[in-house]
C-alpha cells in the first residue's frame, strides 16, 4: 500500500493537499477493490480447473458445452446461483443465518492482505503477518459454527461441530511447523520470510536441513488441507454421511459465498505454503526474477500457489474421505508429535552457531532432491503416456467400435 501511496503522491498533483485520512483511505480503497476483484473472480477459474481436473482424472472430459471448452460453465453456474432464491428454513435464526456465510468469506479474504505478491507488492506488510493469517483464518470456523447453529438442522450442526473439531486440531501441527520457519527467520512478517529465501532454489525452506523441512512442509500442507475442509479431510461436508454439512440449508447467493470461501481458502493456504516453503514471489533462480522492467514476483507466487492448488485437487480425486477417528488420529498422534519433534530439532540447529568451515548442506542437498522430484514426475509422465499408448493399442485390437460423428 505504501508503494501505491508513493506513486499517487508523485504522479497526482493535489494528492498531497488532501486531508490525511483521505490520503490513507484512497490507496486502501484501491488496494481493496483490486484484491476483492482478484479474490472474487479467482474461484470461477478454480472451479473450472477443478471440474476439468476431476474429469481428466476419471477419464471424462469435464465441462464442454458452455463457451470454448466449457470455459464459461462456472460463469453460468455463478450467475445461476446469484439469481436463485435464498431460502430460510423454518425455525432458523435468520440474523445468524445471513451473518455466517459473510463471516466465512471475511475470514478467507482477510488473509489476502498480508500475502506478498512481490518484495513491495503487499497490501499491509504486518510485522506479525503469519500470526495474523493464523488468527484470521480461524475466523471462518466461527462462521461455520454459526451456520450450523443457525440452520436449525441436525446435519448442519453435525457438520459445524466436525469442522470446529477438525480446524482446532489441525491448527496445532500447522502452527508448530510455522514455528520452525519463524525460528529460522527470526521474524513473523511474510515478507521477511520470503526474503530469507532469496538467492535461488537451494535457499528455499523446503530444502533446508534436508530431511527436516520437507517433512515440515508435508505436515503444513496436510494440516492446510484439513483447515480448508478439502478431501480427504472433507468430513464437515461429507455428502454421503451428512447431507452437505454446514451448508445443507443454504441456497442461492449465500451458498455461493461458502463456495467462494472454500476456494479462496484453498488459494490462501497454497499461497502461504509457497511463501513459507517455496520462496513465495522469488524465482527459482535470481535471473528469472525480472523480465526487463517487468517484475515477475506476482507470477512466481501465483504459479507456485497454483501448483499447490493443483496438488490439492489431485489429492481430492485420489483419496477417499477419512473417518472422523482417523482424522483425529492423524492430527494428534501423527502430525503433532512429528511437528513437536521438528520444532525441537530446528530450535537446536538454529541455536547451534554456524561455523565458517561447516559443510554447506543447504547448497548441496536441496538441488539433488529437486532434481529427483522433477525427474520422478517427468518419468511418471512419460510412463503414463507410454502406458496409455499401449492400452490404446489393446483397445484397438479388441475391435470395440469407435464413436461416429453425427453433427458438431
Amino acid at each position, binding site marked *: 500500500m505504501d508503494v501505491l501511496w508513493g506513486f499517487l503522491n508523485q504522479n497526482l498533483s493535489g494528492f498531497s493537499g488532501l486531508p490525511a485520512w483521505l490520503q490513507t483511505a484512497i490507496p486502501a480503497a484501491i488496494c481493496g477493490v483490486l484484491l476483492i476483484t482478484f479474490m472474487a473472480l479467482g474461484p470461477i477459474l478454480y472451479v473450472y480447473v477443478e471440474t476439468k481436473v476431476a474429469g481428466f482424472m476419471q477419464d471424462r472430459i469435464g465441462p464442454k458445452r458452455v463457451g470454448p471448452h466449457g470455459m464459461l460453465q462456472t460463469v453460468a453456474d455463478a450467475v445461476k446461483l446469484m439469481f436463485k432464491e435464498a431460502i430460510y428454513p423454518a425455525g432458523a435464526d435468520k440474523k445468524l443465518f445471513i451473518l455466517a456465510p459473510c463471516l466465512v468469506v471475511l475470514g478467507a479474504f482477510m488473509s489476502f492482505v498480508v500475502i506478498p505478491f512481490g518484495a513491495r507488492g503487499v497490501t499491509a506488510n504486518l510485522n506479525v503477518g503469519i500470526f495474523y493469517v493464523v488468527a484470521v483464518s480461524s475466523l471462518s470456523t466461527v462462521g461455520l459454527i454459526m451456520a450450523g447453529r443457525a440452520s436449525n438442522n441436525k446435519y448442519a450442526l453435525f457438520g459445524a461441530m466436525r469442522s470446529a473439531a477438525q480446524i482446532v486440531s489441525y491448527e496445532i501441527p500447522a502452527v508448530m511447523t510455522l514455528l520452525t520457519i519463524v525460528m529460522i527467520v527470526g521474524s513473523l512478517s511474510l515478507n521477511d520470510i520470503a526474503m530469507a529465501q532469496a538467492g535461488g532454489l537451494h535457499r528455499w525452506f523446503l530444502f533446508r536441513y534436508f530431511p527436516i523441512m520437507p517433512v515440515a512442509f508435508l505436515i503444513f500442507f496436510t494440516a492446510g488441507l484439513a483447515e480448508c475442509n478439502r478431501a480427504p479431510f472433507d468430513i464437515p461436508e461429507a455428502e454421503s454421511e451428512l447431507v452437505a454439512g454446514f451448508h445443507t440449508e443454504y441456497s442461492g447467493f449465500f451458498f455461493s459465498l461458502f463456495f467462494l470461501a472454500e476456494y479462496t481458502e484453498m488459494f490462501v493456504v497454497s499461497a502461504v505454503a509457497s511463501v513459507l516453503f517455496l520462496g513465495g514471489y522469488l524465482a527459482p533462480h535470481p535471473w528469472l526474477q525480472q523480465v526487463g522492467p517487468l517484475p515477475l514476483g506476482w507470477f512466481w507466487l501465483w504459479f507456485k500457489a497454483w501448483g499447490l492448488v493443483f496438488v490439492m485437487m489431485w489429492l481430492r480425486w485420489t483419496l477417499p474421505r477419512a473417518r472422523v477417528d482417523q482424522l483425529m488420529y492423524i492430527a494428534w498422534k*501423527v502430525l503433532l508429535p512429528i511437528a513437536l519433534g521438528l520444532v525441537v530439532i530446528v530450535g537446536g540447529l538454529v541455536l547451534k552457531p554456524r561455523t565458517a568451515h561447516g559443510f554447506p548442506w543447504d547448497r548441496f542437498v536441496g538441488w539433488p532432491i529437486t532434481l529427483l522430484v522433477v525427474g520422478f514426475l517427468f518419468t511418471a509422465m512419460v510412463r503414463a503416456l507410454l502406458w496409455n499408448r499401449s492400452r490404446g493399442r489393446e483397445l484397438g485390437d479388441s475391435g470395440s467400435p469407435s464413436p461416429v460423428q453425427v453433427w*458438431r
Partner: protein
Amino acid sequence: MREWLQNVWEAVYTVLVGMTITWRHLFTKSVTLQYPSEKWPLPPRTRMRLFMKYEDCIGCGQCVRACPVACISMKTEKRPADAKPIWAATGHPIKLDVTAFDIDMSLCCYCNLCTYPCPTFCIYMTPDYEFATRNLTEHLYRFAKKDAVFLTEDPKKKAGEEPKPGASPAGAAGA
C-alpha cells in the same frame, strides 16, 4: 513405536501410489461420448422402433397374433368386389382394406416376433431409438393412411402384359 512408524510410512507411500495412478489417468484419452453429437454405431439387425409400411400390408393379421404383449391392433374390412385390384410390393394381392393399424410403442417389448410371420415384410424394426415423448399417448403410432397410393399392377407380372381384372393372381400367392 515400530508399528507406528510403519503405519506412517504406509500412509505416505500408499498416498503416493494413489497419486501416481490418478496422474496416469490425467493423460488417458477420455471415454466420454458426446451423445447428441456423437453416437455409437448400432449393430446390424438392431431392434428399435417398429415401422409398418401401410402400402404393402395385406391385412392378414399374423403380426397381431404373434405379438406377445398385444401392442398391435388392426381393423380390416373386406375390399368390395368392384374395387380396383391392388397389390403389395411383394406381389401379394391386397384383398382387405386395413382401416386401422396402430402400434403402441409404450407396450412393445421389442421381441421382433411380429416381423417374422409378415408375408410382405411390411412390418419391421428400425434402428431409430430417439423417440422419447413427454406424453405416453404419443407412443401410439397410427400407420393407417387415407391417401395411400397402392400398386395397381401386379409387380410380379412381366411388363407389357395385361392385368386380368378382378382375377386373383394365383402365381403371386404361390411365390
